[in-house]
């Protein structure tokens, strides 16, 4: 039934673009590079007749990876995919058999053209921590990057610092910060609102104080996070904290880049890619680049964080692997590499081209490639890295101070131990998943049969009754015909995926590999007993729901009463108040982020200082409590229109005679509202409450657009948490169990609501 409809629809709509000859598909997310890619692709087609289609669908790496993962599971990856480097991410795809092995080609001379510290990121050596075959290559680097500290030469001069000799040691750096601050210049800004930026800063000092051996020991577990190396690294964060721009942990890197370009801060930690960004935003900006200031007391060298920038991997399922490799060889050739660098102001991965950079700032970055951290190809679970980043945010925001560092490190260490023990429990305790699964399935059917039996018994379904039912059903055939289309679509596209999801919640699955291991209730046990972060996110959603129920709906009711009272321009108000719900989340997120910006360019802060309330100016999205409050505000702002319309509709159903009768009895104002309006509105109130709870507890896109769950997880809500578990931490099975728990909770809440409203209704 579905198929014919689908086929007809497809025939009607599908505008295929089948091309003759070989066409290679490439997915990536570097929207900035798309024009150059297209230019080079056209050149390649002219030379060889092979068409290469580059497709950048989203500039958001997370969203892009979601798309990639879905395509990987379904084995419909394009010929080549853009990746950000090796590590765990690529390893997952390799182990799931999604990526083609390039070892042979690389060893046959291809690798020689690349700068080794860059190519190294796509290489898995003997003893790598991910279980990838030792000594193998899996990707082709297009560009290189590393992160250093940009500084504004003009601001340095203004503070009496020598822009030709930026601070090289940590004490000197702090001195410089103090001088800048005393001149009223914000010393440091960076996109610490993005989690990875926090990790990027800390990791440099973690290596500086632990050394390569120490980092290896930490990952393998023989060194605890509660050790001097890590304590020292976090101390540097707390040293830096007082010199960062206000609300820096609520500032995504894009905003930080704009602020730096605008001369609002003297220094910014950023990657080599930013050279181009700064130049385009403000061509007059006088920038310098310095390495991280080192601590002379540390016995270890100071490494820079960096390596591969953009890279492409060939998909294992591609029908044109040879052509893809051929294209990539051409693409990374000297002249093409040069082209990419010239136009994109990028550091090339090609060694020969590296020497041809003439831009002094880029040169400094190219030189930095020599000091990169050694690639160790092992890492702690993503959750631990996320926790570390959040810890840095907490210290930077001032929510935690240097005296809390030991407690914070204990947190990180215990999270790691918990994850390790969960993993070993999962691997050790499950003796025979297959048997467990059979037992579970049998149990499931038995329970279902018992429930259905009990229901049938309670309804008095004897054979005769069933016959009656059958007769009724036959007589009401038309009803089923009317129901059929909706039911069919719901069964296929709604219920079936849901049941699949529900079943997945009993498995351990990374969301990519072909093996799904049955684990019984384990995921649920972990959700209920061992995942405080999930329940914290529930708490945040509960606050949002509560605020929406009381403030948003209360205010909506208040305005509905005013408008219903017959005010002039009623229709115009009605029209305008419903505008927010129809706006897309992209618009809402962009505009409100700008309003709530933490520095003096934020609109709200500007308005406060203009009205003499400058002392109230805050980093609205940069401080945990304020960020949650801001999210709540915008959620209510957008949801308010719905409640308003529903209340207004409800008010109009109250018969005028009731009010007339009441006014004869002398009821006015408050007592009129309390004795007539409110009881009459009660059913509406219940509906609005249910819809509000369902909407707010499942809020997702708005939080993603405004804060991404930050700072330090302060605005994490269940659905963002579930999304990240599934698509970032490769815990697909586990994430579905959280979705089920949330779903059950919502059903429970809705049920309670309905019961309350029924009770109240019958009492009336």
């Amino acid at each position, binding site marked *: 039934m579905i*198929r014919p409809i*689908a086929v007809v*629809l497809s025939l009607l*709509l599908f505008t295929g673009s089948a091309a003759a000859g070989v066409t290679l598909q490439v997915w990536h997310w570097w*929207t*900035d590079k798309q024009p150059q890619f297209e230019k080079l692709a056209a050149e390649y087609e002219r030379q060889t007749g092979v068409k290469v289609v580059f497709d950048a*669908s*989203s*500039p*958001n790496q997370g969203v892009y990876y979601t798309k990639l993962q*879905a395509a990987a*599971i*379904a084995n*419909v990856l394009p010929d080549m995919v853009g990746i950000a480097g090796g590590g765990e991410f690529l390893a997952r795809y390799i182990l799931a058999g999604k990526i083609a092995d390039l070892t042979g080609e690389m060893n046959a001379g291809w690798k020689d053209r690349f700068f080794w510290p860059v190519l190294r990121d796509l290489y898995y050596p003997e003893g790598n921590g991910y279980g990838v075959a030792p000594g193998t290559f899996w990707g082709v680097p297009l560009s290189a990057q590393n992160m250093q500290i940009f500084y504004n030469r003009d601001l340095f001069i203004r503070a009496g610092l020598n822009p030709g000799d930026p601070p090289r040691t940590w004490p000197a750096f702090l001195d410089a910060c103090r001088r800048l601050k005393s001149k009223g210049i914000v010393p440091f800004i960076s996109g610490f609102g993005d989690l990875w930026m926090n990790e990027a800063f800390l990791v440099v000092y973690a290596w500086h104080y632990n050394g390569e051996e120490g980092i290896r020991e930490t990952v393998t577990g023989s060194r605890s996070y509660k050790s001097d190396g890590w304590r020292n690294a976090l101390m540097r964060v707390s040293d830096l904290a007082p010199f960062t721009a206000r609300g820096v942990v609520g500032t995504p890197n*894009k905003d930080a880049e704009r602020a730096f370009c*605008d001369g609002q801060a003297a220094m910014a930690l950023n990657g080599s890619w*930013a050279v*181009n960004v700064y130049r385009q935003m*403000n061509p007059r900006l006088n920038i310098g680049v310095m390495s991280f200031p080192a601590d002379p007391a540390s016995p270890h060298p100071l490494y820079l964080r960096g390596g591969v920038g953009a890279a492409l991997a060939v998909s294992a399922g591609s029908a044109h692997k040879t052509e893809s490799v051929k294209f990539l060889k051409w693409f990374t050739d000297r002249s093409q590499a040069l082209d990419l660098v010239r136009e994109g102001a990028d550091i090339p991965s090609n060694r020969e081209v590296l020497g041809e950079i003439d831009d002094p700032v880029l040169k400094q970055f190219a030189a930095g490639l020599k000091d990169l951290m050694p690639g160790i190809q092992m890492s702690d679970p993503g959750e631990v890295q996320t926790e570390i980043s959040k810890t840095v945010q907490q210290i930077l925001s001032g929510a935690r101070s240097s005296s809390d560092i030991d407690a914070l490190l204990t947190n990180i260490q215990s999270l790691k131990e918990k994850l390790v023990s969960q993993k070993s429990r999962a691997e050790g305790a499950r003796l025979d998943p297959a048997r467990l699964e059979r037992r579970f399935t049998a149990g499931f059917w038995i329970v279902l049969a018992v429930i259905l039996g009990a229901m049938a018994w309670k309804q008095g379904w004897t054979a005769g009754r069933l016959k009656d*039912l059958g007769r009724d*059903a036959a007589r*009401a055939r*038309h*009803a089923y015909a*009317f*129901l059929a289309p*909706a039911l069919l*679509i719901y069964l296929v*596209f*709604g219920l079936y995926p*849901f049941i*699949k*999801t529900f079943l997945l919640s009993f498995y351990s699955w990374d969301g990519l590999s072909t093996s799904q291991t049955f684990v019984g209730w384990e995921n649920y046990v972990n959700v209920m007993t061992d995942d405080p972060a999930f329940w914290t996110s529930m708490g945040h959603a509960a606050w949002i729901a509560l605020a929406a129920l009381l403030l948003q709906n209360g205010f909506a009711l208040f305005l509905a009463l*005013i*408008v219903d009272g017959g*005010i002039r*321009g009623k229709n115009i*108000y*009605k029209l*305008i*108040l419903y505008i*927010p719900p*129809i*706006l*897309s*989340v*992209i618009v809402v997120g962009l*505009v*409100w982020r700008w309003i709530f910006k933490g520095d*003096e360019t934020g609109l709200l802060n500007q308005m406060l200082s203009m009205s003499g309330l400058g002392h109230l100016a805050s980093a609205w999205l940069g401080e945990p409590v304020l960020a949650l409050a801001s999210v709540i505000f915008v959620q209510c702002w957008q949801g308010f229109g719905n409640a308003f*319309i529903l209340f*207004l*509709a409800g008010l109009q159903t109250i018969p005028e005679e009731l009010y007339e009768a009441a006014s004869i009895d002398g009821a006015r104002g408050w007592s009129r509202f309390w004795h007539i309006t409110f009881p009459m509105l009660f059913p509406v109130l219940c509906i609005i409450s249910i819809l509000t709870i*369902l909407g707010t507890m*499942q809020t*997702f896109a708005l939080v993603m657009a405004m804060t991404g769950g930050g700072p330090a997880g302060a605005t994490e809500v269940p659905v963002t948490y*579930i999304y990240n578990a*599934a698509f970032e931490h490769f815990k697909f099975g586990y994430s579905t169990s959280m979705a089920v728990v949330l*779903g059950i909770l*919502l059903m429970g809440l809705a049920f309670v609501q309905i019961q309350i409203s029924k009770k109240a209704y019958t009492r009336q």
Partner: protein
Amino acid sequence: MQYKIERWIRGAASHLLLWFVSAVCLFPLAWMLATSFKRLDEVSTSVATFWPEELRFENYVIALQQAEFGKYFLNSVLYTSLTVVGVLLFASMASFVFSKSVFPGSRTFFYFFIGSMMIPIPGAFIPLYVLLINLDLVNTPAGLILPYINSGLAFAIYLFKGFFDEIPNELLEAAELDGCSRWKVYRMIMMPLAKPILATVSIFTAMAIWNEYLLALVIVGGQKALYPLQVGIMKFQGVHLTDYPLLMAALVIATIPILVIYLLLQKFMIKGVTAGAIKG
């Protein structure tokens, strides 16, 4: 006299409050519009000004000149309109029998639909995608529209049923006595009466579908020619550098249609919501 003054003050205060709320509601729209006329360096300065230096339409020209922009626009129109039609048709048919027919399983099926509003989406994402692959529907419009219709059904059925419950049964019985078939009753009597609720459901559905992008990105993400506007607009956001005025111009273009739909249909909305959600 005193009563009059009190009333006047109350009226003025009400208007003041409503003006303020209206301004807050309209602000993002206004800001988007204002920004779309600016130059990039105008938005990068520290003191943000609301008014652009001059009315510059070049951002719109650039946005519209992007080769695929028109195509994305048409795709969005297509997805939204077909989804709306599908939801209106299927939900009204189902609600018609939920409301006006007695048949075994009626209540069960109804709650079955309503329950689906409580399922958080991200979990069901991958299974849905795998299913679409098996049905050969990935990278086809149908593969997007059918799940879209599903996503709108539950709430629409809830609204329609509430509305139909208000229509007196006698009307239908009379028609049936005249020999009308069930289908004819649905088509000739129910549908013409259902205008307000049809408008309401149209607004709700169109709003959700027009602004959706995550599902679209995954399901038709492999076929550029099928991108809806919201996915197409992504490319106006750079990884590192975003041309905000250009992005805003694109967003204005993307917002106009849904705004127009809303303005055209909103006068039915109160009526539809009243009967659909409140009395039902």
